[in-house]
């Protein structure tokens, strides 16, 4: 039978904590940009103007059809060239972090756009009609009347997507960025304790996601009550 040896974990905690910080950074940036850009995409998809609707639909469908792994690789290929070209960034900048942030933010925007679109459509049509009848412009009606109600309805879904995103950030492994899982893998590989480190990482993700889902369930009860 396999003999467990957990002794390499306590010493590796600072490394793991640095990795966790990277994971949280990527998650938070992707959630923030994803919701902002996703809202713009959702509104564009519902716009009566075809020149707004079509590009937004194409963007969302493209990103939703391609595996996240491919998107991360794509951005790792494209971002360094763009950075060098337009910003003159020196090679000292951590290209992997920048390209991971860009990949996750733009990829998640497509998923957020679909959630937000459903949220906007769940607001009764009469709300928009009433706002327009009161003399608000369509943009004002969207910003002051429809979106606040839509966001309230879809808050649990937005947070659930954030939990999925938190788990998906582990895929930055493919470009060698040391997020929480990447750090755990490196420590395990170095010490020959991959079994313990993979199990430990899994447990941490499990507990964090489970706790977050429990909070979302409580919030959902309050929102729907």
């Amino acid at each position, binding site marked *: 039978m396999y003999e467990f040896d957990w002794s390499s974990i306590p010493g590796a905690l600072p490394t793991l904590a640095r990795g966790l910080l990277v994971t949280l950074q990527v998650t938070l940036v992707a959630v923030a940009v994803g919701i902002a850009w996703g809202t713009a995409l959702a509104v564009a998809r519902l716009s009566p103007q075809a020149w707004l609707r079509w590009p937004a639909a194409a963007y969302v469908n493209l990103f939703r*059809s391609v595996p996240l792994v*491919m998107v991360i690789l794509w951005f790792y290929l494209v971002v360094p060239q763009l950075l060098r070209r337009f910003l003159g960034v020196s090679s000292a900048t951590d290209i992997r972090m920048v390209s991971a942030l860009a990949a996750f933010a733009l990829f998640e925007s497509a998923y957020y756009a679909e959630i937000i679109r459903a949220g906007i459509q769940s607001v009764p049509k009469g709300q928009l009609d009433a706002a327009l009848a009161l003399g608000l412009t369509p943009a004002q009606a969207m910003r002051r009347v429809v979106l606040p109600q839509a966001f309230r309805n879809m808050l649990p879904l937005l947070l659930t997507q954030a939990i999925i995103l938190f788990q*998906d950030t582990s*895929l930055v*492994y*493919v470009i060698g960025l040391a997020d929480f899982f990447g750090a755990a893998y490196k420590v395990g590989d170095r010490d020959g304790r*991959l079994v313990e480190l993979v*199990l430990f990482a899994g447990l941490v993700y499990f507990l964090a996601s*489970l706790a977050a889902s429990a909070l979302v369930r409580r919030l959902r009860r309050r929102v729907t009550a």
Partner: protein
Amino acid sequence: MGTAWNWGVFLQETPSGGATYLGWLLTGLGWTVGLSLAAWAVALLLGTALGVLRTVPGRLRPGLAAAYVEAFRNVPLLVQLFAWYFVLPELLPRAWGDAIKRSDPLLQQFLAAWLCLSLFTAARVCEQVRAGLGALPPGQLQAALALGLTRFQAYRRVLLPMALRLVVPPLTSEFLNVFKNSAVASTIGLVELSRQSQQLVDYTAQAYEAFIAVTLLYLLVNVAVMLLMRRVEARARVPGFIGAR
């Protein structure tokens, strides 16, 4: 961006000989499709069984199925894959573990990825099937039981045929997810489509061509699955229910 385009690269012969780079991509596509379909078959069966367990009376069986779903939904897919690939052979009795490690690496990668994707997707199918069963009027089960069917027969003959037809649309998106999730298998070295794109970059340095081709192949798979499922959906539609025409 100053890229020297060279689409002819796909017709060049690979260094190992006997194949073109296009051949590599198609082999990768084959593994992606094969792995995804194999995982989907297991996930559909296991997920349906788990979905039924979640709805039967009592505490133990629904509780076990719920625990399964929580476990597989709250751990990242990549971590699950590494657990099956690196951890499982160590935890098995030594003789088994050694037998696994001595086997063909491709077989090890495929089996680990298959097991991982199947179990991961089953948790998601379970939730959809449970939702489908929950959407049925309770009278259906009561009527079936009153007619003298056992609970097993009631699920087999009455509830599941209805519930599975109702959940075809959400299952379609899970089916699409399997293909996308199969790209994670590239991390343990299985030469499916994503991995082949990286190999092409390493061998030919024509990164844009390789990535564009692979992205198009994924889009193609997506479209094919959607067309297939649209037909399934049309045939499975239950008259009188929402979405029926």
